[in-house]
């Protein structure tokens, strides 16, 4: 049962990555693309990690995965801000 949930979560995460990439390719301007990007960063990555956490063997690995999730969340938020600011300047 846990296995199935995990697989579902992982596949859903991958699907968000695919949609994020398509958005990056097809959306008209920078800010829309940023929006698409954050979808795959937050949701795609989050679901993927959640799925993998369900499969991890020990606590340490699960904690590391959690840490990576938080890191990517925060970092991508900051990075998106910085990129938007930068493009506003230039």
């Amino acid at each position: 049962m846990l296995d199935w949930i995990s697989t579902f979560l992982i596949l859903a995460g991958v699907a968000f990555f695919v949609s994020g990439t398509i958005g990056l390719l097809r959306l008209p301007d920078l800010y829309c693309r940023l929006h698409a990007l954050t979808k795959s960063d937050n949701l795609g990555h989050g679901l993927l990690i959640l799925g993998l956490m369900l499969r991890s063997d020990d606590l340490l690995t699960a904690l590391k995965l959690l840490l990576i999730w938080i890191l990517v969340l925060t970092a991508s938020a900051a990075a998106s801000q910085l990129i938007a600011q930068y493009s506003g300047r230039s």
Partner: protein
Amino acid sequence: MNTLSWSFLDILLVIALVLLAGAALRARSLRQSIILFIAFGLVTALVWARLRAPDVALAEAAIGAGLTGALLLTALRNRPSEESRLVSNNGMRWGGRWGNVAITVSVSLVALGIGWAVLYGMNDTQSGRLAGQVGSALELSGVSNPVTAVLLNFRAYDTLLELAVLLAALLGILSLGGGRATHCTVDPIATSLRGWLVPLLILTAGYQLWVGAHAPGGAFQAGALLAAAGVVQHLAGRAHAGLPVGAVLRVLMVSGIGIFMTMGLWTFLGGRGFLAYPQRWAGELILLIELFATLAIAVTLILCYLGSEPERRRITPAGSKP
């Protein structure tokens, strides 16, 4: 099904590598080349991970995908703006399009030749032989991670000389004195990033250093992470990047080679041979060496990033050393 998927994955990764390499070479500005180069480092790390080489993947992730970008950017920033090329164009031009064709052809020929020779000369028993030797000598080395055993025990002499190479590169950069003391603007996002990124980086560096004895990790990865902490500090407006100044800094610069030489000469004069650790303490000695090597590598990389020694006049608050 599985082998087919692996081949798909391999093909995709190779396509990504070649695409990025080509684009980085052909990019219109150096700035864009650098972005592409960072992406190239990232994909390279992926390739190493796929090849089941986590040690190399770690180093590539830390240095190739992370620090190199910052180093290249600071080089670009310190460059006098009137120069658009690294080398002024007397003699290093390769003759336009035909030169490019010639380079492409010769590189491809060499690559084909290597591929052919590898296929022809592939000999699993031979290339696996040394790995077997390492495996059987591993329990004498004091650590259980074969990569660390090779780097810090079996071939410690190579590592010692590599630290000397790093030092030479740093001294070369410092002697050119190019980097000016850049003071970056304080940006709220960068400052808040620093608040949590720097402690995390230092923590991870410590973890990598510790884990290196029995799992992938070690001084080079830890040093790169520690250096990244310094770079973040600098990006967030700390001109010193968390480095000490003066004599302390200079001692830290050479501490990696210093500890190696101390160990080496100690065992040598004790009649055991250069760098022949007493087996009982080998693990502890290796950790000690790695600790100082990590500090030296971090200081070296940060100084390479800064381009010159931080000046004395503004001393950073205590405890901000990365």
